[in-house]
């Protein structure tokens, strides 16, 4: 008896389950099918939703868009690329700032870097001179004297080299800020120039502003 019930249950399970799954899928599709019915093509193609009342408004918008694209092109030409500025400043400290028209800053960075590296090299040269004397020395006082004389400039050399590294690092940080500020200024100038322009030529002909 028990075996018969189990077999019957299995048979029912096999036949009912696929139908049940199909019903569930159909139920899930119902809302989207209903939405298809509700899609309004008139609303979709209605241009007034963009604020255009008629073809004149659309034309004005198009002209405005073209002008903005032109401004963007000018901006791309006149602005500085941040990556390029960083590379320039990494190779020659201050060069990135100079290319972003920050002449004073660039000169100060270049001067500081050259000065610190120059002083570092000077002390390194002094240190090497005395170190050479130290290596040649055979007298105990000379050995101690020339070693001390070589040690002090070596410290100074490292100190100025570290200063040069700090200046270099700050120069990289600064070139990012400088380029950003320069690009903002370029955009502002482009907008001002464009605002001052009284006569402009476009596809629609010549425009005159008062």
């Amino acid at each position, binding site marked *: 008896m028990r075996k018969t019930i189990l077999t019957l249950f299995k048979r029912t399970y096999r036949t009912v389950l696929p139908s049940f799954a199909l019903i569930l899928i159909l139920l899930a599709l119902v809302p989207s099918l209903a939405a298809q019915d509700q899609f309004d093509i008139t609303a979709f193609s209605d241009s007034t939703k963009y604020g255009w009342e008629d073809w004149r408004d659309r034309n004005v918008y198009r002209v405005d868009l073209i002008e903005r694209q032109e401004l963007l092109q000018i901006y791309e030409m006149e602005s500085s690329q941040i990556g390029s500025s960083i590379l320039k400043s990494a190779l020659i400290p201050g060069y990135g700032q100079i290319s972003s028209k920050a002449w004073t800053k660039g000169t100060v960075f270049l001067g500081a870097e050259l000065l610190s590296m120059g002083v570092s090299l000077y002390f390194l040269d002094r240190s090497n001179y005395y170190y050479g004397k130290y290596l040649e020395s055979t007298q105990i006082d000379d050995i101690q004297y020339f*070693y001390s004389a070589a040690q002090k400039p070596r410290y100074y050399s490292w100190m100025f080299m570290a200063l040069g590294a700090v200046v270099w690092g700050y120069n990289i940080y600064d070139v990012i800020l400088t380029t950003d500020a320069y690009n903002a200024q370029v955009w502002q100038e482009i907008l001002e120039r464009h605002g001052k322009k009284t006569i402009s030529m476009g596809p629609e002909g010549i425009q005159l502003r008062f």
Partner: protein
Amino acid sequence: MKFRNLILLLCLILLTSCMVKRNNPLDPIGNPDIIVPDQVSGLQCFASGVGATNKYVELRWNANPSLNTDGYYIYMGLAYNSEYAVVDTVTTNVSVSSHGGKPWHSVKAGDYWYKVAAFRDVYDEDGKVLGKLEGRRSEPRFIRVPA
């Protein structure tokens, strides 16, 4: 606390890397096995007599222990603080030397200052000579060589 220790460690590493290397093979600080000759003491100078044909200056000092000395350099200068030049080298550990006194090597009449410094031959592990390490020079001694 950890951060401060890290900064201190970095500073220490930086300072150590800035140090000039003691590569001179005669440097006793870089090579602790090297024995530095003692400073020469008890230097005395005696000049040849008046009218001597071959004038000389005889130098006497206290000999250093043979452990740290293989010979001596004799320095001569024209003033106390002038430059001194090596005028003779004694290659044995003795306590006397004569500068001049021979027809081909005599001292002219005049005032002189003498110094003496001991040296020691320094060898590497293979027995190869690395050089002569010279110790501190003695205090200068004045001598007048009469005409």
